[in-house]
């Protein structure tokens, strides 16, 4: 346990070392939040709700998704793929710890830092500039749980995508496509209920929705009781399935590795 704590702390420090980058990222995320908010407001000026989203929920939605973007790392977590290409992965595999657990601890440390120093300020911008609603206090345990699960799904999915580098020499192509797909399927481009009906339903069931769309719905208080439990269960299911799949892929990948000594 001590080991994972120390690894996570290193992950935290990887982010905290570059303060200007944190401010820059925060500014960019909040700016996109404002721009997206105006587009959704223009839609809702013509009708009261779309798929259960009214004006308040829609504006809250864009700021919460922008806030969660960095912690779940929808874009560009390529640490392992980079190390596979450079060959550094051989060193990682030497370590007497499981690569997935080790990466997860680093990822958790980084996400924790982003949650405190990026997500909270973005939400604050939303509250001040657009008066977005904060989750009610009695919902806080559910919010903590849903965000934790979102980060876990984010890690598990990235890990799987990163491992593909063992099979493809050039994994940048996969990363580009995964980013574009995730952009829509996570609900970042527009909230999933704004998509035409069959697509919206399908997208809601895929793992990307568990990273942004679903947790943000929970934060907005759109789900209660059994429905809430269902959302959390689906998130947990995706986390477990993807983590196990990652573990299996890792065992296949390590069996393939040939290290050229030097």
């Amino acid at each position, binding site marked *: 346990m001590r080991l994972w704590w120390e690894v996570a702390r290193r992950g935290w420090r990887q982010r905290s070392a*570059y*303060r*200007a*980058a944190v*401010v*820059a*990222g925060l*500014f*960019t995320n909040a*700016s*996109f939040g*404002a*721009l997206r908010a*105006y*587009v959704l*407001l*223009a*839609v809702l000026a*013509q*009708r009261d709700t*779309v798929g259960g989203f009214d004006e308040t929920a829609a504006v809250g939605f864009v700021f919460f998704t922008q806030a969660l973007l960095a912690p779940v790392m929808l874009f560009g977590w390529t640490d392992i793929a980079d190390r596979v290409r450079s060959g550094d992965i051989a060193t990682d595999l030497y370590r007497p710890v499981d690569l997935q657990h080790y990466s997860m601890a680093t990822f958790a440390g980084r996400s924790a830092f982003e949650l405190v120093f990026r997500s909270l300020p973005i939400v604050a911008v939303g509250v001040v500039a657009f008066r977005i609603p904060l989750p009610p206090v009695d919902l806080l345990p559910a919010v903590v749980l849903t965000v934790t699960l979102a980060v876990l799904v984010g890690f598990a999915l990235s890990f799987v995508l990163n491992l593909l580098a063992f099979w493809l020499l*050039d994994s*940048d*192509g996969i990363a*580009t*496509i995964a*980013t*574009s*797909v995730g*952009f*829509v399927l996570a609900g970042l*481009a*527009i909230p999933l209920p*704004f*998509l*035409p009906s069959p697509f919206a339903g399908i997208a809601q069931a895929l793992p990307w929705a568990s990273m942004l769309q679903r947790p943000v719905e929970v934060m907005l208080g759109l789900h209660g009781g059994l429905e809430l439990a269902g959302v959390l269960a689906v998130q947990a299911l995706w986390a477990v399935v993807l983590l196990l799949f990652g573990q299996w892929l890792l065992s296949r990948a390590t069996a393939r590795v040939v290290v050229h000594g030097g």
Partner: protein
Amino acid sequence: MVDELRLWRVLVAARVRSQWQYRTSFLLYACGSFLGALVDFVALSAIFTKVPQLGGWSFGEVAFLYGVSGLGFALASFAVASVGNLSRRVKDGTFDSLLLRPLGTITQLSAEGFALRRIGRVAQAGCVLVLSLMLLELSWTPGRVAVTTVAIACGTLVYAAVFLATAAISFWVIDGAEVGNAFTYGGNYLSNQPLDIYARWLRSFATFVIPLAFAAYLPVAWVLDKPVPAGIPADLMWAGPVVAVAALLAAQAVWQAGLHTYRSTGT
């Protein structure tokens, strides 16, 4: 200046030849870039399955705006987006090597990182533009053709200015490069939508601070006969080319100022 452009062309041609050697890789990347950009337009189209218009503009009209704005952005990105590598160059100290060569730093950076695959984004914007022309059934008077063409050219210059000015931030704040995305990609996102939907301060910002309105919104509104909201004098549109050139000169001045404050780490 003429020499500089000639050398830029030679360097870029060399990059193109080298990237063309790996044809499959190039095609995959170009398709990826096309798809990545396409997804963005698909999301915008989805909105029109829920409502008939956005800020008073129909789907065809928004698509036309998106095409014009997107084409200017894609061409600028194609030509100079790699000046964004400045951040990495300053950080790892390799920027110094550029200063030793008898060629401008902007020319070197944009030629060196030239990526042929960015043509995918140009293709996407072109497709959207063609789609919108089929939807709109406008009568194409010479005036409309001229204004649209000039708008795309102005857009290229304005976005190139934004790429340069925001990349130059790295001269002052090494890790601040991500701020640039808010103005480059954010600026493009902003002007893909009719400015009518934004708050007044944002419209003024996009007209008078960073002249994005000249890159697409004002000329497109003129071509489509759309009313322009309060806060933007519509006749300003005719100043587009002057504004675009001024923006580029201003961006270059920012870059030069950054270059003067640059202190090498000396390692």
